[in-house]
């Protein structure tokens, strides 16, 4: 196994934020069909160990590329940039304001036990999520603006957290 190979190269994909999801899914399935431990359950321990290492590697690469935040963090990491550096957490004030408004909206919906309000909020969060993903295609693939991309990745992570919080409130309201 070549550990210097990138996750993109592993699946025969270009190292871009824009993702051919169908190609990724197909290549992942093909790879797991080849390396999964279930293919080697009747083989020697040596082959079973190798299979586990490969299947682990394929799962990790697939997970990273599939996930919008992780794919961004990974592309920046390939540029030597730590997107989640705890010492650099600057964020545009307008985005932070928006965050606070959304948090209040979550609290309001929880207080009023309004599932329909949560639905509307979730739609809004998902739209913004997709917008930031589009920005990242532009920043990383076209402009190669890594500083800009770093902030966008962090924003996307905020969005994920908010979406998870809305999920928690759904759980609370639905019992």
């Amino acid at each position, binding site marked *: 196994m070549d550990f210097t190979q990138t996750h993109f190269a592993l699946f025969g994909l270009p190292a871009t934020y824009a993702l051919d999801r169908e190609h990724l899914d*197909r290549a992942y399935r093909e790879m797991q*069909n080849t390396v*999964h431990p279930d*293919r080697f359950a009747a083989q020697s321990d*040596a*082959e079973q160990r190798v299979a586990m290492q490969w299947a682990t590697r394929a799962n990790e690469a697939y997970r990273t590329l599939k996930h919008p935040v992780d794919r961004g963090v990974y592309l920046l990491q390939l540029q030597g940039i730590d997107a989640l550096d705890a010492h650099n957490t600057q964020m545009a004030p307008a985005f932070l304001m928006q965050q606070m408004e959304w948090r209040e909206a979550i609290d309001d919906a929880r207080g009023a036990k309004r599932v329909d309000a949560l639905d509307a909020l979730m739609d809004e969060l998902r739209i913004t999520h997709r917008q930031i993903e589009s920005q990242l295609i532009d920043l990383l693939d076209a402009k190669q603006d890594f500083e800009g991309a770093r902030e966008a990745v962090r924003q996307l992570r905020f969005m994920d957290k908010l979406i998870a919080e809305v999920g928690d409130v759904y*759980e609370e309201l*639905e019992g």
Partner: protein
Amino acid sequence: MGYTAQRAQSQDPHNTLISVKRFMGRGLKDIDDVASMPYHFVDAPGMVQIKTIAGVKSPVEVSAEILKVLRARAESALGGELVGAVITVPAYFDDAQRQATKDAAQLAGINVLRLLNEPTAAAIAYGLDNTSEGVFAVYDLGGGTFDISILKLSKGVFEVLATNGDSALGGDDFDQRVFCWMVEKGRFQPLSASDMRLLLTKARDAKEALTEHLDVRVTVVLSTGEMMDATLTQAEFNAMASSLLSKTLAPTRKALRDAGLTVGDIKGVVMVGGSTRMPCVRQAVAEFFKQAPLTNLDPDKVVALGAAMQADVLAGNRAGDDWLLLDVIPLSLGLETMGGLTEKVIPRNTTIPTARAQEFTTFKDGQTAMSVHVLQGERELAVDCRSLARFELRGIPPMVAGAARIRVTFQVDADGLLSVSAREQSTGVETSVQVKPSYGLADDDITRMLKDAFTHARDDMVARALNEQIVDANGLIAATRAAMQEDSALLAADEAAAIDASMAALEKLVTQTDHLAIKRGIEALNAVTTDFAQRRMDQNVRRAMAGQKLETFG
């Protein structure tokens, strides 16, 4: 075992163990309804034990007894020794419960090809019958456990997207509701253990009768002479059951949300487990998913059917490219950090096998040891999660606080079992655990039980062990020879010679009777072929991926 035990349950409730699966990998404090059970529990570190007339038994030992009977039945039905078995577990079983299950199999002398999640097994049985594509839900309500799994079926790949459940919710709880109704109707005084079991049996009969009938007459005479005689209608029963049904729908919603899907995305709902025969369960599921669930396979047999099909593939009896399962871990794995908080290392619903590492540092100047507490669960506080293991990394060189870099690596294998290792990066000081000894059984316990079980049949055990090793060795030699013929180009002359020598040594050992020597010979041959296995896999992957590119760009 089986019907004999079922008949004995009300005469001898203390010594007739029912639904022991509920106690696997569980401490006394994890069991909710201890008071309503007739057993004499013994609180042991890690896993509860039960005092019986045959001595104190751990749930693992009881399971092993059941597995032994099943093994004997399988061997007589198939007419030969069992090479291995696929053992199914509820998808929502945590690491402790899975490990306990694997220990029980080991104790019963069964080679576990794979621990397979029950809903996934059911999906194989259904999916292959119907050659379906799309996203399916498997709703599995058994005697003591509830699972919900969301799977995507695509071109022969069964990919589990999310799983959830309740490992202490099942048909037994419905019996309990009817039991309470009977106690109320009969105005019964505190019950003896055998009367309690009698009522539970009657409760179960009544519940089952209501699957076919709109009402059932329930008549009971206790050993005290007290009695009750009343009619239970399906409507009354449904009312008692409704809170239990809600308890299954909450995990269902969570699983859908984790999969990022809504009810409208689900193409079909598969019903598994005897409890899904209850009309109220079918109705609740149909209402939730807005479609009638699939019930054309026997809900008690569908898991076994799927498991058998998977065993056929794993044993190498089929070409192997019929289908592939990609399963997940049901609960997040993590570590305790400062202030008793949980830090997740591998989130729930991560596809297995998987590995993830996290770096930690020392918090005191000159600190030379660090304790690692491995947890499973979703809660923020460590005390609210299941404790899987504690171990200590010692020999860290004294440094200022925050300078040491300790990398903790979690590896989860294809059975969903975890092993953890910790390493100080600058010095390479390392320690690792098979997450196992802090609950349930340590390896020593297993060895002791194996010995106990075989004291009367020591020669038998040796003969069996020898036989197993010879079968393994011959299999390994045949596979190695085939691999060398196929890929001789991947080996340098001296490497091939080393493998040949190791193989010849093992062939000689097989003709003798020292099973431990054969075991060492197998290990040696495995070690000397590791690089070769690695290169063969590299080559397979290159070939598979080359095909991919042609398909994509061609």
